[in-house]
């Protein structure tokens, strides 16, 4: 009981149609919008293909760093609060741990939003 084509297949076809068929027929601001939408379709295709494992890994890493459980948005808010509460010259190495954790998450998101950017 699965709808076919799935989201990734449709998004790929949408991007191709926009780029190959719609774009050549447009100009000016509309042309720019079509290009942007085709790129967004490719981003969503990659996001769908990557699945939920990546955000879950980030959630677990955050829960471990902060010593508490929660959803990803809850833990991001908690991380921000935790940074705000510390002296800017905090010497526990917390900023550097946070930086490392976020960098891994950023590389995962770049693979979806802008492949090749972090290489």
């Amino acid at each position, binding site marked *: 009981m699965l709808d076919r084509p799935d989201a990734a297949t449709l998004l790929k076809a949408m991007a191709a149609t926009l780029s190959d068929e719609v774009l050549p027929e447009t100009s000016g601001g509309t042309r720019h919008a079509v290009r*942007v939408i085709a*790129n*967004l379709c490719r981003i969503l295709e990659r996001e769908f293909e990557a699945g939920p494992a990546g955000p879950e890994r980030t959630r677990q890493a955050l829960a471990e760093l902060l010593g508490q459980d929660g959803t990803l948005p809850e833990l991001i808010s908690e*991380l*921000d609060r935790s*940074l705000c509460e510390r002296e800017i010259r905090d010497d526990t190495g917390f*900023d550097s741990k946070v930086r490392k954790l*976020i*960098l891994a998450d*950023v590389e995962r998101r770049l693979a979806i939003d802008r492949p090749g950017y972090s290489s």
Partner: protein
Amino acid sequence: MKDHTDAADETDTSALSARLAAMLPGNAEIRITGVASLGAQRRTLFLDILRDGATTQAVAQIASQVLDPADIEKEARLLRAAAKAGVAVPHLLAVDAKAGTIISEHIAGESIPRRILRLVDAQADLGSKLTSDCGRLLAMIHQIPTEEFHDLENLGNAKRYAEEMEELLESLTAPHPTFRLGVRWLGRHELDAPAASVVVHGDFRIGNFLASDEGIRAVLDWELVHLGDPMEDLAWLCLRTWRFGADDLVVGGFGQLEALRTAYEKAGGTWRAKAFDWWTVARTLWWGLGLARQAQAHMQGEVNSIVLAASGRRVVELEYDLLRLMQD
């Protein structure tokens, strides 16, 4: 040249033409020949001015919602001072501050970044020519006498700038821990020797100047001009986001940093390497916050724009750049 697309998308083109004609001396007739850009802040139109049997090409910039007339007046004043200092800028033909309109001469040249980078690929010495033009022009801008510009906002104080970035961060509805790290980094790293305040262009980068195969023809887009630290302009020009994929060429995707520095110093500027690094972090943070703000404007229904919504998916690029810059 900027895109000469369809005729002006103006509901009442004849009224607009008449209004623009009335700004000019003599019996001028105006024909709107194209739209260069429809920015959020202002639109730029190409014009033919017909007067005494002669036709002159010109450009009109019209603020979308009439901004503070003082801002238009300020920009016009600045363009005149820049011209006087020898900076290549379009010659002003008429200013109507109340209507938010500036008419200036048309200068042939390319402003679209990817097209400029294609010219650079095709012509061996153009990249280094553009780089030395950038260094020379910025040094000249930074030497514009500040006496008549005391009313400009001064963003040169590093501590105050870091506080402003924190205020921008707080104005976002979602938390951004990467940008929080950025604000904390700015607070920890003070500028060693603050510079005297100079005129800072504020948006000097590929896309905001006209280039030809001979180099930079004119510096455009002065609406973010302010007083501040000269290294702010140099850092902004070299942000990765303005290299359009040509990441090895730090200066706008067309030149080397050392060549920029040499040209800047040769034209009388003083290069401060630590300040350049500080402003690189500060401006990367500012642009990341700006993209997040654009996406938020769409999500909160202030505007309905797929282009602004898509900016939200570019924030991660600036996060990456920022994290790579903050190694200590």
